[in-house]
């Protein structure tokens, strides 16, 4: 059994550097799987916004990562929340065009398994399937128990979740 740091050193997970501003502190962390790292490099740069908005899916993810890691308030009411529980302790990080599936190892520490175009996920109703796939990856990962925070309470998985 291993820790996230050991998995990072072994190349089984990668710590995401959010490139915060000079005066920002990294209050929350993101680790990503090799699968998600590949997706960031191969697929994400080529994704096109179905909403045809000025910031590309790649820019949306970069901005979300910065917001998440800087520890700022995540949720402004039920409609404006960039994280959402799916099932079995699997969560998604959301932008208008992207969904990233993963879980919280401990509070404020997200482990992302894979990403998808939001439109693709919604069109083919892939939430359940992708949550199951993510859970299988989590279960197979040689990570110290408990591997994740169970339940669907966002305040249990992130600090400073909501306004007010």
């Amino acid at each position: 059994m291993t820790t996230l740091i050991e998995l990072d050193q072994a190349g089984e997970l990668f710590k995401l550097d959010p490139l915060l501003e000079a005066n920002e502190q990294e209050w929350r962390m993101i680790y990503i799987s090799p699968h998600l790292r590949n997706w960031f490099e191969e697929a994400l740069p080529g994704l096109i916004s179905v909403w045809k908005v000025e910031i590309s899916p790649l820019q949306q993810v970069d901005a979300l990562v910065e917001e998440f890691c800087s520890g700022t308030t995540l949720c402004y009411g039920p409609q404006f929340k960039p994280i959402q529980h799916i099932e079995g302790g699997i969560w998604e990080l959301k932008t208008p065009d992207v969904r990233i599936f993963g879980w919280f190892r401990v509070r404020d520490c997200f482990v992302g398994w894979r990403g998808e175009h939001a439109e693709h996920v919604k069109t083919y109703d892939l939430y359940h399937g992708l949550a199951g796939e993510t859970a299988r990856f989590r279960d197979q990962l040689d990570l110290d128990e408990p591997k994740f925070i169970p339940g669907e309470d966002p305040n249990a998985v992130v600090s400073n979740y909501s306004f007010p």
Partner: protein
Amino acid sequence: MPSYRITVSPSKRAAGRFVYGVRRAIQKAFAEEQSKRGLTQTAIARALGIHRSVINRELRGKKDITLGRVAELAWAMGRKPHFDFLEPVERGGQNYDIAACVNADATSGTANIEIDDRASSDAS
């Protein structure tokens, strides 16, 4: 093992984070006004003479917002937008060397926008 960084050009990174941040500032202002006085998207839409679905898409990042619309939304919320081009400030405890970052980014400052809660008297 070095940490992984998402590859985005510095200018695109600045643009994406700015646009995202502006939208989040609007969402925050809306949530505050909703909590304070029960403001709804329908009321904003009515005040601006547009359909509620347009406001909803703009607030959720599914429709671009012009600078003019930022001001209109602020007005409809009884707020005032505030816009600045800030110079980067070097301080202790920062995450990286600001000078190197500015050179790499080919930018000399940070743009920032906030929605102040100074109520405008003619907002509905």
